[in-house]
């Protein structure tokens, strides 16, 4: 058992990877079932929940293949990874349940497993080049998922996404090469002292390139513009995955990179704060006039990741924890909003222009309630989890000394209200003309029920959740 524990990080990556041939071999013909994929997630979550206690005690560090991190690849399973992976597992499971289209279901699940494996790897790895490999796995899975709707808009989105994503990947690759050249290591654990000892500007420039690449992936101003374009053509399930799973994974990686290079983080703090502030402003303002549901949510993501980045760049432990907490909560609620969007399709209309979307007849009240709760959470109105995470983000950012930033985060909610209200009014609009062809009637309950219930229930425990995040950040910073 002990040896299994030390190998846990590898297993968390390999089990979803093994899901790919598993899906292939268990499919006799056609669409297959969702069971193998769900089983994989179940196994991962079980492993996670059994090992939380050990991770609390101390991070589980694994040398992959038995080679010590400098020679080989180090993986670290800590509370940060636990928290983020629980959230992403939830979203992946919801995505599997949400995808009820028959065509390409098997393809979709395969990609989902790959995305899951890649994002798990991103959150666990301690090795820069290994992180690059996982970045590419996650990204290619995302590109393919965006294109999987196989329509005009989907291909345009996917192409734009691929172009931006490849550029980001190249930046990261350059940065890794530069860091290896000047510090002689790829391992994040041993990077800090060598980074400080190395002379010249090249190490800092290389690390900045890595950070720029990750900022592109996260979609922060001025690297943000692809985000709305590439979510516009994706199906709602895929958008939920991108804004929930991929974003969370990249944010965790950014946290690891930043905490591995404390001196650089300190000197970059003003820039990162500026970027985050600009993202908050741009994201919210751009969302105000968006004509489409998915674009609106995409720009709102830009702003919310800005909250997280702002809190993180302040450098104080509690502020970083608050930022992490907000990002995780945001992943849940934003993906739930996207999953909710799938219900529009049941009214038989494929467009997501705001004039056209409306909730279907079945469970209409439930849908409206879910939307209201999620929107409240996004805006930050009590008593939902989004409020508590925003509250902590504002207060801790202010305490860390970034007063303007705190005010920006607080004001962001007021702007967000305007656009969520606009969508909400549209969604419950009673005077809609009869739709010519009602879509596939769904007897199933809306998928985001789980996420919404979670943000309601967990609000009571927000103190404890934040304490968990604080512990995770302390672990992260101590490890360096």
């Amino acid at each position: 058992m002990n040896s299994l524990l030390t190998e846990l990080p590898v297993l968390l990556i390999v089990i979803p990877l093994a899901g790919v041939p598993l899906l292939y071999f268990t499919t006799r013909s056609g669409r297959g079932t969702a069971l193998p994929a769900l089983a994989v997630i179940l196994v991962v979550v079980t492993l996670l929940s059994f090992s939380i206690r050990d991770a609390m005690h101390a991070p589980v560090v694994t040398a992959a293949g038995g080679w010590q991190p400098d020679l080989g690849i180090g993986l670290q399973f800590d509370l940060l990874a636990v928290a983020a992976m629980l959230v992403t597992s939830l979203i992946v499971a919801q995505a599997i349940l949400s995808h009820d289209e028959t065509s390409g279901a098997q393809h979709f699940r395969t990609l989902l497993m790959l995305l899951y494996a890649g994002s798990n790897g991103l959150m666990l790895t301690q090795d820069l080049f290994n992180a690059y490999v996982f970045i590419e796995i996650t990204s290619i899975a995302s590109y393919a998922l965006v294109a999987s709707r196989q329509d005009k808009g989907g291909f345009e989105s996917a192409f734009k996404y691929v172009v931006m994503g490849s550029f980001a990947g190249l930046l990261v690759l350059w940065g890794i090469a530069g860091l290896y050249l000047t510090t002689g290591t790829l391992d994040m654990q041993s990077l800090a002292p060598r980074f400080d000892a190395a002379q010249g500007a090249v190490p800092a420039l290389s690390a900045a390139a890595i950070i720029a690449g990750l900022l592109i992936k996260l979609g922060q101003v001025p690297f943000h513009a692809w985000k709305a374009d590439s979510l516009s053509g994706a199906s709602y399930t895929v958008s939920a995955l991108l804004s929930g799973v991929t974003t969370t994974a990249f944010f965790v990686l950014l946290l690891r990179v930043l905490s591995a290079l404390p001196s650089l983080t300190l000197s970059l703090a003003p820039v990162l704060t500026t970027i985050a502030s600009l993202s908050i402003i741009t994201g919210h303002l751009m969302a105000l006039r968006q004509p489409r549901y998915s674009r609106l949510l995409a720009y709102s993501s830009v702003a919310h990741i800005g909250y997280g980045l702002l809190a993180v760049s302040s450098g104080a432990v509690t502020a970083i924890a608050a930022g992490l907490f907000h990002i995780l909560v945001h992943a849940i609620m934003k993906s739930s909003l996207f999953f909710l969007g799938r219900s529009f399709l049941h009214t038989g209309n494929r467009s997501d222009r705001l004039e056209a979307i409306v909730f279907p007849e079945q469970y209409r009240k439930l849908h409206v309630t879910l939307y209201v709760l999620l929107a409240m959470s996004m805006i930050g109105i009590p008593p939902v989890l989004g409020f508590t995470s925003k509250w902590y983000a504002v207060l801790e950012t202010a305490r860390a000394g970034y007063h303007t930033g705190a005010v920006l985060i607080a004001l962001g909610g007021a702007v967000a209200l305007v656009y969520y209200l606009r969508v909400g009014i549209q969604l419950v609009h009673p005077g809609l003309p009869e739709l010519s062809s009602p879509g596939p009637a769904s007897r199933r309950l809306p998928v985001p029920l789980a996420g919404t219930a979670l943000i309601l229930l967990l609000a009571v425990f927000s103190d404890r959740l934040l304490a968990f995040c604080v512990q995770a950040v302390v672990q992260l910073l101590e490890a360096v």
Partner: protein
Amino acid sequence: MSGITAAVLQTVNTPHIESGAIFVSQAILLFGLLALVFVALHTRRSALWWVGAIVHIGAGALLPYTADMVSFFMIWELITVGAAIVLVCEPDAHGLLRRYLPWQLLAAALLLSGFALHFAESGSVALPAAGVTAGRILIGIAVAIKAALMPLHLWMVGTYARVRPGTAVVLSAVATKIGVFGVYRLLPGSISLEILGGIMATVAVLYALRQNRLRPFLAFHIISQVGYMIAGVGSAAAAAQIAGLYHLGNHIVYKGLLFMVVALMVPMTGTPNIYSTRGMGRRSFVLTVAAIAGALSISGVPPFNGYISKSLLQYSLVSPVAIHLLTIAGIGTALSFTKFLWHGFLRPGPLPQAHDVGEGLIARTGTRTITVALSLLCLLMGLYPRSFFAELPDSAGITQQSFESGLVWPVVGAALFFILYGPILRVLLVTLPGSTTVMNLLRSAGTRGLQLMQRQHTGDIRRYLGWAVGGTMLLWTWVLLAP
């Protein structure tokens, strides 16, 4: 620690008990319940509406007892949530929500920022939170929005003029009072707040004079009365603060009374226009008595309750400028309500046809009883102020002398209506900028800015790549140049 659950539990265990808080809370609760009874008798509402109204009033009554920022903010938001639920049930829900919620959320955001800055400095979540200057300003703007301080009043006029009458009664019981309580609880007393209150009272009265529809007219008078309260509770003098709080209590009662009168009037006369309503005096004796009682109270005529608090304010304010401004506002109020009474109730002329304007009711006995009860309450609060609010000074009360001094300015106002009203109105119409023009200007500027921003996102991926390259190079430049 900023633990949310912990802080809420702490507030539950050790609430903030203080006579001012108790008074405000009880005033809101009492009047809120009366308003609910009024609505129940007056018209049918959906279950959701009731939930919203009860949350709104309940949260309003709870807010004064909160002891820390977390609970204060959460209940502050809960008041908004309650109001939003109420507004959802209104016929014109979309327009109302668009008008009401953004301002309330803006107030909440500013309050949150102010709290955050305070927290950053003191490291504690305890109230009052008026440490940092910047934080104080933010909190000030927040409560100013909630209290509908003059340039930030648009939400209130827009909302109260569009909801159904009964809803206006319920909303008027809480929203602005909470703003005033916020000034009392969160901001330190200062002369500038006194003067601000005075200016607000005066300017709002001028705008009210201009109105020809009943509910905007009342809404502007609320703003004006809130000016009195802010002058009082914003003062550094303890006596003025008490007077301001008592004015708040009085105001809740007589303003609610006036809204009820209007709510009953409109379906009977069939028009919301002040100049077209007439003959109410001949149609309903009870309503006429109630209207007169409300008008006398708000104009500060002894022995009604408005007089007590207004005269106390006159004695206890520190700044002479504020005192003079309040006097002018008092004259304006008297003038304005003379207009209301004259056109609506007393003027001779043919009776207009009664017809239904959507409420589908004729005033029932129960609702009239409530207006009578509130009129009596106005009188009692004037005659025995200390049994309502024990903190008031012994001198508070009606005396022979108070009749002489208290009647002067209201009479001047009433006289002005009959002598000079036409010219005054004409000057006002020309000089005061309309609120809609300002709003439209702002809105078009904002739209233009957003369009400009949106047009930068052309959808050309090469342009986005260029931004990314540029951003990376900026990052590199910083790294190169940073120490």
